[in-house]
């Protein structure tokens, strides 16, 4: 079976799984709606031509209340898994995750600052905008710190990322102390959440993600070659530094678009690529699309869990609570010889 047929087969299967998860998730909540009804409602909605009859209340619950949140979860899971795959390949390090160059910390500082600081940001930046801008600026700053003479050694980048994250962590703590009344809101944001999503929240990531994902797919082969090491990659015709810059920029923007809306949702970008690598192998041409789709399903499913309890918990808690044991299992069951 060629890689292409495997990729198409897996992608179709995972897309079907995602559709299933979305339909089931949209039916779960304080008002339970059967999957068949949900499917009918979805297929009668805007882009689809069908006109199934359904109660207006169910229609509103599914389309206006639950679906925005589910679609956002799908986009964010898709984005984080994509960025995770790229970062793990980029750093040739299975422990890398989307926020390794400080994107998440950067977003957190921006978000927390807009909540805590008593003045409004210039240019009418709201919380999400500020988080996005500071996330991208942080990644760019880490890149600049680690770059000398046009070369960005990945080890330097990694360490610079760690240092900057630590520094920003201190900034966040400082802001927390002075947060006063808004402490609860800050903590809630930092934990990663999808509650209260409207279609407006979905818009930004829906616009940013698709083109960048296509771009990264086109570089899947380069990522494969980069896994052999930079010197080898150069000898095999890869413009190493240019490719690294592009991969870093694209995955940082993808991550920033996700965490700016939802806060820091851990482990999706770490364990989904890992699990998919175990199943489909390390080739990025299949790993990238399958991880992205699996990441979408994973986050929709975990967010459904997060909101279906007696009290809603931030989804970041659920992903971490499920992800960390799974990751430890991976650590124990597979020999991890390299960092």
């Amino acid at each position, binding site marked *: 079976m060629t890689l292409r047929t495997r990729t198409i087969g897996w992608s179709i299967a995972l897309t079907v799984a995602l559709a299933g998860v979305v339909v089931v998730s949209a039916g779960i909540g304080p008002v339970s709606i059967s999957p068949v009804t949900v499917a009918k409602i979805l297929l009668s909605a805007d882009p689809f031509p069908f006109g199934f009859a359904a109660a207006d209340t169910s229609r509103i619950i599914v389309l206006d209340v639950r679906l925005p949140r589910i679609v956002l979860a799908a986009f964010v899971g898709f984005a984080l898994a994509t960025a995770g795959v790229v970062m793990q390949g980029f750093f*040739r390090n299975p422990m890398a995750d989307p926020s390794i160059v400080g994107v998440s910390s950067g977003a957190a500082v921006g978000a927390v600052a807009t909540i805590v600081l008593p003045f409004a940001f210039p240019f009418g930046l709201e919380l999400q905008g500020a988080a996005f801008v500071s996330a991208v600026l942080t990644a760019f700053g880490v890149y600049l710190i680690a770059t000398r003479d046009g070369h960005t050694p990945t080890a330097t980048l990694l360490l610079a990322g760690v240092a900057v994250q630590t520094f920003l962590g201190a900034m966040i703590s400082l802001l927390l102390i002075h947060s006063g009344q808004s402490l609860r809101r800050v903590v809630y944001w930092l934990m990663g959440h999808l509650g209260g999503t409207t279609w407006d929240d979905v818009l930004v990531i829906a616009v940013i993600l698709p083109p960048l994902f296509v771009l990264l797919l*086109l570089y899947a*082969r380069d990522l*494969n*070659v980069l*896994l*052999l*090491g930079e*010197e*080898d990659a*150069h*000898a*095999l*015709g*890869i*413009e*190493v530094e240019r490719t690294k810059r592009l991969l870093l920029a694209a995955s940082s923007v993808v991550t920033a678009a996700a965490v700016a809306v939802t806060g820091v949702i851990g482990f999706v970008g770490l364990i989904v690529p890992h699990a998919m690598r175990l199943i489909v*192998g*390390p*080739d990025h041409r299949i790993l990238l699309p399958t991880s992205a789709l699996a990441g979408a399903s994973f986050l929709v499913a975990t967010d459904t869990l997060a909101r279906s309890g007696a009290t809603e918990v931030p989804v970041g808690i659920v992903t971490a609570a499920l992800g960390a044991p799974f990751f430890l299992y991976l650590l124990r069951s597979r020999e991890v010889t*390299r960092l």
Partner: protein
Amino acid sequence: MNDPNGPHDPSADSPAAAPEEPLVRVEDLQIGFGDTTVLDGFDVAIDSGTFVGLVGPNGAGKTTLLRALNGTLSPTSGTVRVADESVPDLSSKAASRLVATVPQDTTVAFEFDARAVVEMGRNPHRSRFGGWTADDTAAVERALDRTDAQRFADRPVTTLSGGERQRVLLARALAQETPLLLLDEPTASLDINHQVRTLELVRELVSQNKTAIAAIHDLNLAAHYCDELLLLSNGRVAAHGPPESVLTETALEAAFDANAVVSQHPVTGSVYVTALPDGDRVTESEPSADADERSGHVHVVGGGGTAARHLYVLDAAGFDVSAGALNEGDTDTEAARNLALDVVTVDPFAGVGPEARAAVERRVEAADCVVVADVEVGTGNLPNLRAATAADRVVLVEDRPFAERNYVGAEAERVYETLRDRARVVDPADVPRAVAAALSGGDASRFGVDSDDDSASRVQPESTRVAEELPPDDVES
């Protein structure tokens, strides 16, 4: 692995492979990192269809030159041209269609199938949007066949042995279908069998229109397999040409700062380099305190390769050495001839006759010391032993008990005992010290005062190898 135009002689290549312009032309190349200059005014031209061995001490700039040739490093100044293209000005894609590199480090961290790794060799020939073509498949299959890697092509590279991984990376380089192939220490982490197989393969590729440049540590492997050697020293070309013209004792001493003996390998006929321990060095600029103890005439009795090493070491240590009687064609005879020593010989398989015995006796009498190697004794060479009994001082090398190498009987036993009674009996490694001690009449510690234990242990690996590779000839018949 078979190719219709694949004789082992590069000059027999198809006409297309022999353009007038050299494939590789490096002029006045300078490369430095920070304040240190690694390559300093480097000029070299390499013709198409040659296998060039890059030799030289650590830090001479071998890897740097390879990295300049494949475009990884940009030169500070000077030109690097491959197939008439300036490598530093090419995109890495264009450069990787001209030059393929087999890296020294063959570890691959992710679990790609070997075939997937080889397929990456096609990257230079594919555009971002272009699909995989039949040409690509053919090139990959050819490369896997050539390197005999087909067998494990579908296994993850992480499960392959070092030798197998290297063949995968060689296949990857072949899949690039470049005129020039660079190999960085292709034999460094391989056992002797895989070293030879790798170099045989490169040799064969070169006979089929490739040009290969390989950094090789082992001078003797390099000499045996390469058409030309390029000796690097301090970032410059110290010598470039056929192995026998490059591997001279003077050139090696200058480049490696080590004492070496260059001879011809008795089996392969290639140039053969034997490194000698520092303790045995004679440097004119630095006369050692015990120089007078090292002068003197030493006669060596051996045969069947038992004495070759002592001849090398004693000659290098500055003694006036003679040898015999030995059969013509014996490896010891070859060794003595290579060192231009005074040697008494008899016909192949003949015994030592009265005339030869007289010649030996004259040399024994003239000698200040006689060394008797761990030789097998038959009626043919027993006269050598008898002659040795007349010596002033005897150093007897005993590796095996005499009974195991006595093919004469009680008579030889008697002669040997006479000899043994007044000899210094030593291990093969201790010969130079024992000789020096015998000549000075003192104890062994007076030779090479501060470094002798050290040097005796250092001599071991190199010389043992020589001894092992010399086939035991039969002096008696």
